[in-house]
């Protein structure tokens, strides 16, 4: 709770909120964009707490002082109004709102500023395409396509272009930046910076169908050198891949027979499902399932993809032979690019 001092002025209210998970909560910002937003949240909250205190004070005073007491039957004076008072409670709120409106307009423009100097600035461009119900991350300057895990270098401005292939989705990584929508037919952009390494949770926040609640992803911030290694490994072709990676040949065969029309590895395969080039390094399976000891989660997911992720469009493979399944899982788990 090293941020406790920040929350003190808000007392109880934000203390409560401090209970959120660090890599998920918007109340514990981990980057400049989330900082700007949290500062505005705090500013608006301070102003609003002031309003609440004033209104509640008058309210309590009035209902206690002027409550009807037993036996009281007097008829109160029928007051019409009071010009001066009415001006006061019109003007003061306007002034209070200006204190909020002006910083807000400035920051709205700051957050929309995705211009970079192509030659000089240090930045990475990521095209995020949302699908029912998974995420695709394309790095056009690196020739890399990744699924589910969005690797970014720390302390670098990440320019994000948002697209969608089917319905509207929304890209939200609360600890790093507020959301923008992935709208079919339109490209939206936003930016973020992650000063610290870490795995940040991302979520789809626009109702997109049955699997909406499981449409999670991760933003993984690594140091710039690691990122370069990652990007160059991700960009390897299959031929290069064979040389550097110990591939279970049998598993690869199963993959080519069953999976390759939808899933790509090292630039080879379809794009209807997530790219699996670094599948062995995924923090979770399919955006939400943990890796377990006997790989039952992965096996069940391949056999019955909609059982745990309803609405999932992946084709089921209930009858894949056990040995083929084992080989496939070994192969998938061997798919790593960072070692």
């Amino acid at each position: 709770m090293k941020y406790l001092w920040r929350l003190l002025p808000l007392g109880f209210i934000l203390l409560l909120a401090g209970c959120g998970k660090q890599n998920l909560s918007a109340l514990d910002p981990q980057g400049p964009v989330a900082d700007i937003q949290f500062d505005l949240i705090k500013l608006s909250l301070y102003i609003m707490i002031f309003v609440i205190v004033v209104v509640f004070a008058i309210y309590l005073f009035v209902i206690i002082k002027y409550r009807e007491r037993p036996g009281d039957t007097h008829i109160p004076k029928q007051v019409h109004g009071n010009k001066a008072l009415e001006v006061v409670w019109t003007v003061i709120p306007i002034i209070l709102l200006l204190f909020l409106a002006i910083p807000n307009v400035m920051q709205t423009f700051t957050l929309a500023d995705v211009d970079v100097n192509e030659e000089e600035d240090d930045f990475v461009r990521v095209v995020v395409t949302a699908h029912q119900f998974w995420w695709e991350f394309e790095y056009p300057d690196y020739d890399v396509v990744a699924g589910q895990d969005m690797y970014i270098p720390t302390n670098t401005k990440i320019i994000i272009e948002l697209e969608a292939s089917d319905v509207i989705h929304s890209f939200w990584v609360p600890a790093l930046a507020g959301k923008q929508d992935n709208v079919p037919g339109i490209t939206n952009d936003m930016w973020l910076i992650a000063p610290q390494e870490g795995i940040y949770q991302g979520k789809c926040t626009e109702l997109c169908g049955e699997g909406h609640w499981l449409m999670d992803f991760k933003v993984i911030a690594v140091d710039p050198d690691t990122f370069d290694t990652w990007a160059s490994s991700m960009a390897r072709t299959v031929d290069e891949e064979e040389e550097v990676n110990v591939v279970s040949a049998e598993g690869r065969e199963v993959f080519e027979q069953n999976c390759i029309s939808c899933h790509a590895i090292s630039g080879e395969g379809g794009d209807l499902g997530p790219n699996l080039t670094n599948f062995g390094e995924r923090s979770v399976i399919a955006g939400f399932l943990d890796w377990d000891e006997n790989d039952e989660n992965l096996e069940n997911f391949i056999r019955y993809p909609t059982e745990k992720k309803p609405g999932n469009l992946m084709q089921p493979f209930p009858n894949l032979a056990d040995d083929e399944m084992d080989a496939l899982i070994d192969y998938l788990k061997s798919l790593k690019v960072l070692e």
Partner: protein
Amino acid sequence: MSYAKAQSKSAVWDWLTTVDHKKIGIMYLVAGAFFFALGGFEAILMRIQLMFPEASFLPAQTFNELLTMHGTTMIFLAAMPILFGLMNYIVPLQIGARDVAFPFLNSLGFWLFLFGGILLNLSWFFGGAPDAGWTAYVPLSSEYSGTGIDYYVLGLQISGAGTLIGGINFLVTIINMRAPGMSMMRMPLFTWSTFVASTLILFAFPALTIGLLLLMLERIFGATYFAVHAGGNVVIWQHLFWIFGHPEVYILILPAFGIFSEIISTFSKKRLFGYSAMVFATLLIGFLGFMVWAHHMFTVGMGPIANSIFAVATMAIAVPTGIKIFNWLFTMMGGRIQFTTANLFALGFIPSFVMGGVTGVMLATSAANYQFHDTYFVVAHFHYVIIGGVVLGIFGGAFYWWPRMFGYKLDEKLGKIFFWMFLFGFHLTFFVQHFLGLMGMPRRVASYLDGQGLNDMNFISTIGAFLMGVAFIIFVVNIFVSMKNRETSGDPWDGRTLEWTIPSPTPEYNFAQTPLVRDVDAYWHEKYEGDGKMKAAEPLGDIHMPNGSILPVIISIGLFISSFGFIYREHGVIWVAILGLAITFGAMFVRSIKEDHGYHIPVEEIKNDKGGK
């Protein structure tokens, strides 16, 4: 049809054919209460599912259908009809009128709403309810959903037509049918807010109608307004929806404001503080309500200029709303505040709504909105304004006007238990949701994963929802056990406005003689400045009344039948659609050519009633 003949028909036929604004008002209330209970049940089911992480109480698809139907039902079929019920019953009485301007249309509006609502809910039994949220964003609702959305489109189109008809009717009634002396600036605030809300309906509902029409053309006739692969644009739907949808929330809240103005003034025994400022603030909120729709769309990529403009415009609404809050507080200041159940709802409303209002300003902060948008923070916000504002207003209005409408008082003791349990449950349910949202819980999720720090607050929230459910049952019980508390004075609260000058039960013709209005709070003025009785603006005479008609029911049933033909067009039943439309237009034709002069209630009859005293 003679007066005697009208009396001899059976009760069912009487209710089906009635054009009496009071009976139509009661039908709105009954139907609205039914849908309110239904929407509440849907909410409880969702809260049970969300009580524990990764629960399997409901499949995700069912959950999506429930969240869609909960929102759609509560907005279109519960909150609006219940408010329409109160408006229908009360507004003509408050302005000293014998009925609304167009009694036949009033009936038509009700039956269209009812059959639209029934159509929408039948989707549960025929292939699944709509599942794209009450906002039905395309392309999820156009290309990626089943027949449920057809029910949504047609059901809302039919009931929306009813609402539009009702809104126009109120406008004409309030402009044309006020009693002598009741100038606009002497109208009670509930009538004023009905007037402004009806204006909003007049301008906002056509946007919904067009949006639904485009969606219908796309789904049923293969148009491509929203189809990206054919050059369509999906954001247009959002604009159309919110150009309707944002004024819609003011259509709901302004009448509630009006109700609170009546209640607070009555139970503080004081004239409303700053009457003209209140009227002006209501008009301003209504006007600004049309300037802010895109604050629902800050993250859709409109760019910083549009976002900034809509952010500042939205914040501006806080000013007139604040004016109203302070005026209520100062109405109570110096008064003699009576803690009746009706007034408890008004007193519970002020802090609850202020909390919902301040989160509204926070949401208007566009740059911060990127964090709030589509999370539980938004869910918490709009439930604070809709339950803390509209629903408390409806219950407050129910307790306040119950003796007027039903001739008996609701039990105060049960009422207070209901109030406290409901208010406590409401805050318990929704206060924690502010934090859930900021801690990373998106809205409209069928469940959430364990280990994200979201478990405890979701559990608390569900407990609150149960409390609200139990509280509502106590309210229903109250309705039945209180029936013995007959109220015959007609003025149980020492009322200030014209609806309390009438004997109880309210006679069919409302006012034996049209009253003469001499001040704001006309009845109060006569009580404390005059002789305690309204002056009459006309001599006692025969009263002309409109005839009842079954045609509104037939017109509505025609559209209802027709919808099934369109929904199941691929099964070769398009003839059903044509048949339904033929029924509707046939009934309209009959209405057009049939002469109907109404009937007269003879003056002797009126003298026999208590109304002629």
